[in-house]
């Protein structure tokens, strides 16, 4: 027999079966933990798809386009590298063991050579103090250092950017 005066909010039977949204969330999290097959759970989910792969699968012809782009990029990089014929003869860093010198260690011998200019850009700016010329030069420098105490010679090549400002009269 239902008591019409009873407040459903205070009825323990009513309260026992009512679900709140946070409870539903909690229930669903546990539910899907059990529900998702192991094979699917084991797949990594890094939040990104591989658009290149997807495009290749979508259009098999894309494989050739992707290959062509990659090859072109490689050729451009190679051409840039070979533009200065001396650069590839001077590895970026080389350690060449030598026989240790006799007697006291000699001072470190440093040699530096600057190879021909790679590029030079000249810009002129009109400023409050007059015309200013900016020369930006990109050079390729090779430095060689010999360490007599351990008989090692270290050579490296580095790009060098020189920016010079002149006042133009």
């Amino acid at each position, binding site marked *: 027999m239902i008591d019409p005066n009873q407040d459903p909010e205070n009825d323990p039977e009513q309260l026992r079966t009512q*679900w709140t949204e946070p409870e539903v969330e909690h229930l669903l999290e546990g539910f899907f933990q059990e529900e998702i097959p192991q094979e699917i759970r084991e797949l990594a989910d890094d939040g990104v798809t591989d658009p290149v792969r*997807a495009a290749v699968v979508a259009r098999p012809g894309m494989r050739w386009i992707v290959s062509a782009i990659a090859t072109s990029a490689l050729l451009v990089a190679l051409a840039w590298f070979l533009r200065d014929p001396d650069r590839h003869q001077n590895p970026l860093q080389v350690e060449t063991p030598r026989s240790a010198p006799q007697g006291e260690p000699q001072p470190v011998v440093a040699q530096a050579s600057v190879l021909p200019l790679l590029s030079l850009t000249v810009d002129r700016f009109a400023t409050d103090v007059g015309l200013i010329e900016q020369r930006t030069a990109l050079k390729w420098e090779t430095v060689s250092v010999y360490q007599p105490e351990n008989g090692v010679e270290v050579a490296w090549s580095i790009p060098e950017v020189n920016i010079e400002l002149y006042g133009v009269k």
Partner: protein
Amino acid sequence: MSNQRSTDWSADVEAVYKTEARQLWAMFYAHCTDADRAYDAVQESFFRLQRYQGEPIRDVRAWLLRVGQNWLRDVARSKSSGVRSTEHLDKMPGGTEEPSFILADRETQQLVRDVLGRLREDDRSVLILRYGLGWASNRIAAVLNIKSTAVDMRLSRARKRMAELLEEAGVPHD
């Protein structure tokens, strides 16, 4: 040459599987509310993609989704199998949990599954993507092609409806 094409294709399909299978499983689950069958649909759709030799596919994900959903419809039409996996029963003899607890859990799991089955499919989809795969609203929005605010609204509506149905089904609290 043909072998090379086949190897490349397999690698591509495998890569797509790794990135798309979770989401596809969720969408198929939203369709049929049967975890094993949804997984079979994922396998079937990728199997067909692997063998596909027709016209270029414009959208692979949509293609896989369509193939899997068609397969699920065919399966539903051809057999209304009520048989479910009984792996849980194999765990009972050597397991540490009481069989009654395991069965109670299974019963609750089935009740929740039934309740989910009574929701609209688009509500089920957002619930699975959020609570099954743990996706944020913006990611769900991108996949379902709706706004992020619409995802939040749909989630709220689905949770409320779920609460009503759980109450109606008498699903016990923890």
